[in-house]
């Protein structure tokens, strides 16, 4: 590391201004400092003094400060209940308790990491990110835009009634996932949202394919939907798995997750 300036920002404006330098970076939980060959900026901006480490619940939303740790999310009874255990399932395979005590939701989403379990799960919730300059944008849109020098201040999860399930595939426990899969089904209109991550590129949301469920959620419909998702996403190969394997397993995970949702066995 070659950090020459470490600044504990007194305000978001100060953090934003400092972060406009090419060599500056927001620290978040710091877990990225040793992530492969990532270049650590010379100016590190720490947001911990800004009181952004709280989870608030209103009638319609969960408002999660960017400095909330993954462990706190995992232990939030309210979020666990709202996501019927899916959020917890997406979090508790990530490295270890100590790591999750450090890693923050803001850092996890801002990085738009291909391997991110967190990003995959939040995509199928009705999630927005509040950026300091750009304001609120949907997480699905945020994933598509290029990295810039804005700051995620809060993550907002709308309480749209839905059932959610999550599954990931790993070669060994606590390792990066080979594939991540989250599916939600809106309670009111039955619309299904699906996100597939670690392909190995970052997770994206899939909203198409509703027509397969027009006649109900049968095994045949699930099979057709899974095939449609498989054909819609691009898959790649890396040290953990080949593109063909990922594509095959996408069908398996979607079928598993949707079957869980249909049978009401979310927590299994």
């Amino acid at each position, binding site marked *: *590391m*070659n*950090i*020459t*300036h*470490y600044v*504990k920002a007194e305000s978001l404006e100060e953090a934003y201004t400092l972060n406009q330098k090419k060599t500056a970076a927001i*620290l978040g939980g*710091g*877990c990225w*400092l*040793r*992530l492969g060959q990532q270049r*650590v900026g010379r100016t*590190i901006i*720490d947001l*911990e003094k800004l009181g952004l480490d709280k989870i608030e619940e209103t009638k319609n939303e969960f408002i999660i400060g960017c400095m909330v740790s993954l462990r706190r999310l995992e232990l939030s009874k309210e979020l666990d209940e709202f996501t019927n255990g899916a959020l917890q399932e997406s979090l*508790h395979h990530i*490295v*270890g*308790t*100590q*790591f999750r*005590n*450090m890693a923050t939701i803001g850092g996890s989403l801002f990085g738009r990491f291909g391997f991110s379990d967190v990003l995959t799960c939040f995509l199928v919730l009705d999630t927005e990110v509040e950026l300091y300059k750009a304001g609120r944008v949907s997480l699905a849109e945020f994933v598509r835009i290029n990295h810039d020098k804005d700051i995620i201040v809060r993550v907002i999860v709308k309480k749209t009634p839905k059932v959610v399930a999550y599954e990931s595939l790993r070669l060994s*426990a*606590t390792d990066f996932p080979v594939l991540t899969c989250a599916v939600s089904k809106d309670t009111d209109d039955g619309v299904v949202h699906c996100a597939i991550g670690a392909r190995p590129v970052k997770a994206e949301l899939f909203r198409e394919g509703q027509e397969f469920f027009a006649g109900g959620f049968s095994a045949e419909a699930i099979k057709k939907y899974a095939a449609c998702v498989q054909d819609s996403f691009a898959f790649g190969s890396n040290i953990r798995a080949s593109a063909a394997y990922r594509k095959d397993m996408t069908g398996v995970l979607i079928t598993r997750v949707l079957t869980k949702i249909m049978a009401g066995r979310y927590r299994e």
Partner: protein
Amino acid sequence: MIIQYWINGEKVIGDIAPDLVLLDLLRSKGCYSVKCGCETTNCGLCTVWIDGTPMLSCAVPVPRIEGRHVTTLEGLQKEATEFAQFMGAEGSDQCGFCNPGFVMNVLAMVRELKDPTEEEIKEYLAGNLCRCTGYTSHMRVLRSYLAKRQKKVKS
């Protein structure tokens, strides 16, 4: 930059480089139980407590501990010795390299979870890698250690 912090209850005021990592600071202060095992924030060997919460000291820049209390195995000698006796009795210490991080996380777990299930134990300690034991002897140790703690609490 000059910051104030506590290591094992002892107040320290020091001038530190902005890119100094907590792991290196602790070793420079004689806390040799804290070791770097993986370089990728994965193995759990460098586990310390910051304000009582287990974290990986290899990824904590020292400016972040300003005003905070850091605890290493050196600061928990009595409890660590008691747990180590269980490890010795079950033959689970083996090469011993991962023990300091493992013990730190076990002691954090018993503070956080009352009467944890086997599943909860495995989940809590999943971030402490051991390449000798295969974890079976760790689980034996934990069962006997926790049973003794429960007995103590009841009596």
